[in-house]
């Protein structure tokens, strides 16, 4: 009986471990950080010469947005939000933006149409481009679009990649983000240190400090109690041992 119990217990534990293993926090934004971006040759809208990613980041740090023109999903709201965010930045001259298609079907005319859709065709800060080395380029970023042959669409993330003047990826932003996040990315690609501390959420209940954005103050959180907990528990253990020892002696 005991053997069966042990086997059952062990099996339960291992299956639980296996299940838990696949579900911990997602750190995809931190993948490929400080890796060198692939220097893909680029065909850029409005630029007759063939350029390259290196030529662009050598001029100014780059924000790269990965899209495709036949996208029915996230690409358009993603680009719209990015262009709005850039407009709202107080200083938006210390970087360039590269919108690159990862769909081999896209050509320069498709990208020209896309740029016109947002009224950015004459904006020198924005570079709408295609490349013939898209696989090597997206591999260096860790961006993996999946082709769905039924709906003829890519299943992909909305990914912004920040690249500094040395061609190193310094920050990734997944999803449609607010202007403050883009601002942090711009600081990052300009090699400005950005202090950051995760704000308390429902899933982060033992925070050492709780930041109040309204008053801009830090208040001690429950986590600070945990720092003192080892000393408190030790004090209790010593007290219990001393009391028990006294009783034994008496």
């Amino acid at each position, binding site marked *: 009986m005991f053997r069966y119990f042990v086997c059952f217990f062990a099996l339960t534990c291992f299956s639980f471990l296996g299940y*838990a293993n696949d579900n*911990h926090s997602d750190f995809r934004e931190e*993948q490929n950080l400080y890796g060198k971006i692939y220097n893909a040759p680029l065909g850029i809208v409005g630029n007759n010469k063939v350029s390259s990613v290196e030529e662009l980041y050598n001029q100014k740090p780059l924000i790269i947005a990965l899209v495709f023109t036949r996208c029915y999903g996230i690409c358009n709201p993603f680009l719209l939000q990015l262009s709005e965010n850039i407009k709202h930045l107080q200083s938006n001259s210390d970087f360039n933006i590269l919108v690159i298609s990862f769909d081999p079907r896209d050509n320069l005319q498709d990208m020209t149409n896309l740029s016109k859709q947002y009224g950015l065709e004459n904006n020198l800060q924005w570079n709408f481009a295609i490349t013939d080395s898209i696989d090597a380029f997206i591999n260096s970023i860790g961006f993996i679009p999946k082709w769905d042959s039924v709906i003829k669409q890519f299943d992909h993330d909305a990914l912004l990649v920040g690249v500094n003047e040395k061609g190193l990826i310094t920050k990734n932003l997944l999803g449609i983000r607010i202007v403050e996040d883009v601002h942090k990315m711009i600081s990052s690609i300009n090699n400005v240190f950005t*202090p950051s501390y995760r704000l308390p959420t429902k899933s982060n209940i*033992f925070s050492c*400090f709780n930041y109040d954005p309204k008053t801009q103050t830090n208040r001690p959180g429950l986590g600070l109690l945990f720092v003192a907990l*080892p000393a408190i528990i*030790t004090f209790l*253990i010593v007290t219990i041992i001393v009391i028990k020892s006294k009783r034994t002696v008496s």
Partner: protein
Amino acid sequence: MNIDSLKLKKISALWIIVILVLFIASIVLGILMRLNQGKVIEQSPLTFYTNMTTHGLTMIGIWFAAGMVAVNYLLQRYVKTSYGVNLFAFILTVIGVVMLWVTTYAGKFSTGWTFLYPLPFRDLGSESWSTPLFLISLTILGVGWLVWSVSLMAQIFKKYTLAQAFAWQHFKSNPTVETPPFILITTVTLVGVIASLIAAVIVIVLYFAEYFSHGDFVNDALLMKNLIYFFGHTIANEMLYLGLAVIYEIFGEVSDRPKWKMTWYISLAWNCAMVFILTAFFHHLYMDFVQPQALQIVGQLASYLASIPSAAVTVFSIVAAVYGVKVRWSIVNLLFFLGVAGWVIGGLGAVIDATISNNIMLHNTLWVPAHFHTYNAMGNVLFSIGFFYWFSTQYVDKLVLSKLTKYTLTLLIVGGIGFLMAFYVAGANSIPRRYSTYPVELTSGPYLAKVGALFATIYLIAILIFFYNIAKRCFVILSASSR
């Protein structure tokens, strides 16, 4: 020889053999890392960090255990200790260490010994099962050591009252009961050990909570770092204090000098050390801008206040014991004497780094491994090897200072100093720590790594000779019968 005494000797001998075998294996890992940094061999970054994790955790574990073995053995002079708990801790330690090595070598777990959050959850090239197995191995080690520490403390309090165990009666003149310094230092140290192990338990519980919560529960990085250094910094220091307790107990004995008596200043120094050592870990968080400035200042003050009383009193006591008097020098008291010197030098290196204005320059440079290797490799290790020598020769042989012993000691000193100097010079030149290979800009990094590896090999040769001498006597003790 009674059965209880023989059982304690046998389990102590077994501990010593296992500790020394693991020590030699860990030194080899350390040399491999320095050779890789020196570009003499080529390891993948994953192999390097796997070695670094195994090296760090094994070293911390075995030298903590070595201190506990020595203290447990000598405590028998004053109180009865539990053989069962000692054996329990041994079995759990062996299981924990085996699991740890499986985690690092089969599972490629490679976060470094501090396993800082969120590294165990990051994909660093390790197997997916390695994180839970790593946490389980730490749990097993922690349970074994916590039960052992609490058991020893309970035995002390069966004989001594709270005030006596902490030697508070010595604050008054002419105390009626004298507390041996060994009892005071052991009690003070066990308090710190228990606190640090409880911090480890909390960290493990929080890691498990996040692991099993499927993203519903996320840890606070600042809290985790505070707790990890509460555990890591405190236990690394407390294991030195375990070694000092041994010195207070047997230095006089092996030197033909009277045993140290308890005085008010010894009592005061160690009571202060107990309080300050529990808050000194804040100096590991100077670079964490979210930590309030007040805690950073507490960290700097506690770092000074924790080291000065115990170090000053111990150095004063040791110098007073040997200055201007005839001392019977043997390998044991020489190792103790050199160990105290290594502890003080490493401690000074630590205090330099714990000063906020210096930490800006030295943080995460090789200065950090320089100072902690000084008070471990040339401090705590010498305390423990001194005890191992004393323990093994006590029943089998006589303590003599032969020519071979002198040569071995010379090798140990030359190897140790050379190996540490390579770290210090590199640290002073801002060579970063924890780099598997150095970029071309850091030209002195590979050269100093090669120098370090060479001298570490000399140190290893000395340790191998010590191991041979100690282990052969321990095997005799293991095969002894009660008749």
